[in-house]
């Protein structure tokens, strides 16, 4: 198991099992993976990149379904809120973005969900962040109570980014005025476990710009 071919196979399999891997900045990583340097250059994420015809979007053309995302609409709204907060300059790449406080994300999420009941909103937000962090679309720090974009956002291609930029402009940036006293429950920042198919990009918009589109199925 020492050849380049075998280490490439192991690297891809590890990523399949546990999501994009975070490694030291000096490691080059397996072939075919994109190196995403963190903002402070302290580490690098290795993101598998497949050719366009080999990605999950092909499933639609074949009439197949990907693994379903629970609460797809709210999950998409949570991602939209985090993108609005963590992507400061949408003309560029969303990676690495900037950290956003839990209060910022809560305020934007409540705005795009029509200020539904605070408790219900918080439950949906915690569950969505947990789900998205588990799949490496987001990162969540329990210590700093900050949300960051995860390495998978760097996999979006130009057409998807164009749509997301339009969405970004539609969502108002809200300055949090009320700090929710509901402390987010534990959100495990783990990656896709085991043999989970890579989820389709949970784009919070469809081609018509609706925020109702389920992120995966």
């Amino acid at each position, binding site marked *: 198991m020492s050849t380049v071919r075998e280490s490439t*196979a*192991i690297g891809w399999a590890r990523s399949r099992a546990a999501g994009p891997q975070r490694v030291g900045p000096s490691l080059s990583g397996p072939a075919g993976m994109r190196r995403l340097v963190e*903002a402070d250059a302290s580490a690098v994420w290795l993101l598998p990149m497949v050719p366009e015809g080999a990605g999950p979007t*092909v499933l639609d053309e074949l009439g197949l379904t990907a*693994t379903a995302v629970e609460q797809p609409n709210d999950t998409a709204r949570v991602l939209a809120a985090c993108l609005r907060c963590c992507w400061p300059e949408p003309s560029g790449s969303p990676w*690495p973005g900037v950290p956003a406080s839990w209060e910022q994300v809560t305020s934007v999420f409540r705005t795009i969900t029509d200020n539904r009941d605070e408790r219900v909103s918080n439950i949906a937000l915690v569950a969505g962040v947990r789900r998205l962090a588990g799949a490496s679309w987001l990162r969540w720090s329990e210590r700093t109570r900050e949300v960051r974009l995860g390495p998978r956002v760097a996999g979006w291609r130009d057409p998807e980014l164009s749509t997301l930029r339009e969405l970004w402009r539609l969502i108002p940036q809200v300055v949090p005025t009320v700090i929710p006293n509901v402390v987010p429950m534990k959100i495990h920042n783990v990656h896709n476990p085991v*043999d989970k198919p890579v989820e*389709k990009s949970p784009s919070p918009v469809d081609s018509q710009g609706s925020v109702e589109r389920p992120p995966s199925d």
Partner: protein
Amino acid sequence: MTDPVTDPSANPVFDAMLAELSERQREDVLAGYAALEHSAEPVHEALLPALRDATLRRSLTELLHGLGRTLIKLSGNHWTSGYRDDIQAELTRDGWHPLERVDRAILTLVLVHSVAIPRSEGGLRIDQDADTWTSPHPTSPDEIFKHSHLPREEARTALGRLRAAGLVQLDRRRGTGYIPGPQFNRLTPAARRRLQEELILAAGPDTPLAAAIRIRRLHNQGNS
């Protein structure tokens, strides 16, 4: 901040393995890869030229192999992909595991209650041609909460992660219990055997069958 990549879809691994194919063949193999790797359920071969055509299937197999995966044929001309056995062994050799401990515990409970116990009682037919991890015996949430000895919220969160990973699924036809998820289709024959042995060791550690498994493993270790 990303390293400079001119074309985000450029991938030397795919390019090298598909270099000798025509554009059409390349598209077919890539579609086959996408279907097998990303679909929640196994795919019928009628849907994909890369599964029907022997030459294309060989290319697809090589592509999967280079990425640590293998082609798996199921009953009824359905196919899926899974980890190569040697890659799985290499990944887990030093105890590495992508699942959290609590998730593994909950998954084991579901497998024991939905598969191992019904099988030991003759309630599950063991058929080499069928998916032996399909179970009509859901494990109820109450059973999971009771036997896991975990706080309910922690067990619920773990179940959510396992559902998201396709490792368990809700069996709505028979209530609201959990059964093994579609990812169990992705086990190779060797992986199925290993898992079956692990279930015997977990569900009946004092049985003669468990003793035989332990002896055989010791014997194999001695020979390797």
